């Protein structure tokens, strides 16, 4: 029987959820393979390393707790970022917004003089506002002056970092230890409760989960969500439909910055209980959250899963450092690889190969 199989590459209209999931897996697998090369350079078998990571971050109760607690800021920042990215606002500033949320929370905790029970709610509100303001500044610059959002949000990160440094070395300087500067420790009422025996500050976790659901509803079932999506998918259509780019951009950054600020409150009131050096407050949560949001394909609900995945990865960084003597930076390399392969693989989503049999 003679026949010929023709195949042609044509545009795929919309990728199904299954294909998206499959392509994401391919991207992660590719990153695992390339990262494996780096493990080899350090003389460690990648399989063994990955086994250790999984065992360390999921296989025992301590590791699991650490994984979850790392996922909390990733969840909050990630959900906020999905909203911003949907409106095509490139918020690279979650790191700085997180720090400013922490600053605001510290201010409330140490100086507001509020009675005990009011402290934590006030800290969360203050943290939200702190992060939101920090995020609104680049947003205003973009809508009024057309200033590039990537650069401004990034620059604001650096400004936030040095602002925190100034605070802990200057006006908010507390007793320092071993050459590191800190602020004073928060009063007991400003400490977030944690799950017994772990560092999981569960109120923030619950907040993150609730907000993920709320944002999912907002994006998919409300008018504002509709406007956000149209601006992101077809800015010209948005203009014709009378959707205000001004209002929508400010809204998304209010949310995105605010959520990152909440993450900052969680870190400062749940883990550290005082204002520390910026690199101790956030180990790149704001940047990692970008990957979390991207892998979640900008779906707030999916962030719940992807933030957990990256919690595993970050926990894994500790594992490889402690038990394999590998540098923590390898995790950053791994994250960069994932992000790269994720966007590189997107071409697979846009095109498909179709077969046809010809006699």
């Amino acid at each position, binding site marked *: 029987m003679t026949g010929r199989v023709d195949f042609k590459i044509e545009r795929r209209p919309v990728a199904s959820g299954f294909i998206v999931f499959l392509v994401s897996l391919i991207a992660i697998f590719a990153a695992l393979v390339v990262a494996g090369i780096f493990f080899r350079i350090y003389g460690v078998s990648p399989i063994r390393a990955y086994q250790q990571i999984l065992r360390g971050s999921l296989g025992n109760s301590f590791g699991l707790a650490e994984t979850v607690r790392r996922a909390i800021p990733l969840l909050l920042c990630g959900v906020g970022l999905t909203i911003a990215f949907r409106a095509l606002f490139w918020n690279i500033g979650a790191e700085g917004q997180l720090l400013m949320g922490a600053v605001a929370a510290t201010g409330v905790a140490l100086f507001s003089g509020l009675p005990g029970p009011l402290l934590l709610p006030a800290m969360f509100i203050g943290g939200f506002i702190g992060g939101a303001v920090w995020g609104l500044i680049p947003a205003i610059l973009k809508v009024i002056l057309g200033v590039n959002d*990537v*650069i401004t949000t990034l620059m604001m990160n650096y400004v936030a970092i040095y602002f925190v440094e*100034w605070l802990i070395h200057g006006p908010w300087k507390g007793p320092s230890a071993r050459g590191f500067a800190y602020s004073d420790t928060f009063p007991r009422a400003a400490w977030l409760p944690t799950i017994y025996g772990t560092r999981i500050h569960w109120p923030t976790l619950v907040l993150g989960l609730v907000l993920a659901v709320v944002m999912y509803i907002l994006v998919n079932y409300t008018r504002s969500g509709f406007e956000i999506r149209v601006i992101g998918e077809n800015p010209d259509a948005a203009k014709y439909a009378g959707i205000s780019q001004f209002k929508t951009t400010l809204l998304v950054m209010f949310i995105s910055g605010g959520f990152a600020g909440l993450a900052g409150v969680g870190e400062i009131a749940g883990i550290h209980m005082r204002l520390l050096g910026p690199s101790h407050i956030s180990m790149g949560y704001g940047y990692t959250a970008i990957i979390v949001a991207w892998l979640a394909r900008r779906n707030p609900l999916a962030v719940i899963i992807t933030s957990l995945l990256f919690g595993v990865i970050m926990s894994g960084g500790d594992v490889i450092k402690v038990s394999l003597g590998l540098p923590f*930076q390898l995790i950053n390399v791994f994250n960069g690889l994932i992000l790269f392969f994720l966007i590189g693989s997107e071409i697979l989503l846009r095109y498909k190969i179709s077969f046809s049999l010809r006699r």
Partner: protein
Amino acid sequence: MGWETWIITTLSRSLAYGTPLLLGTLGEIYAERSGVLNLGVEGMMIMGAYSAFTTAYITGNPWMGILMAAIVGGVFSLIHAFASVTLKANQVVSGLSLTMLGLGLSGMFGRGWEGKPLPATIPKITISGLSKIPLLGPIFFEGQNLIVYMTILLVPLLWYILYRTRIGITIRSVGESPATADSLGISVARVRYVCVFIGGILAGLSGGYLSVAYRPAWTEGMTAGMGWIVIALTIFAFWNPVYGMLGAYLFAALYHLAFRLQLWVSPELLKAMPYAFAILVLIFVSRGTLQKRMGAPAALGLPYTREEE
């Protein structure tokens, strides 16, 4: 006389510090003129700094370090070009991921290299005759190095190529209207690859200069966001090499002037200054251009696909 020394020192240091900014900006101008946004500059710079330092240390020759920096920057940028041009991926995120990669790789491999002294550095040059010229002499001809001079010479060269040659028109047309360029038989992909590659080489060179000439040392993350400032300067330069030169040296001068404020402002806040400046620079440039929309290559950041049907 205090005044004169002060001006000379500031301008002389601006020349030195402006050089890596200018190198990066020139490269980014070419990449963006062809329509590709390269946010990986920071990653390419730090990889350039790392490879220059280690190569110079191992070979004992700083110029080998510079060469290696250019190569590494170029190779890195080809990855970005592949993702942006061939895979038509999102250019913002591609560049970002490469910056993350560059920072991570250099931080990882650079672990053992911090604090190592570098005996083989780019020598400082003083041209005895010319340095006697009042004011200009000490600024330009005392204590600078070959890379500073090469960079200054690059500016008119790159300007000329971009605005007065066929190649330049080709590049600019690809960035403004790739469809038109394509219909004229120009290979949009090839032009973009080349321009991004140029951007990568210059970014790598910029980083190499930092670790082997400017302040010979290796520290993790030593570029400290300079790559982002370069991107801001590219916008400030309206994608023109000559304005890029002005912008880079001006920024460097402001940077040094502000450090004079050390007596009155705390050091941490001063460190935030270059980044605040970059924002101010962008605000300054954007006032009014929202209406005029001048300068940015129209197709910047947009992947090009030839529409078949």
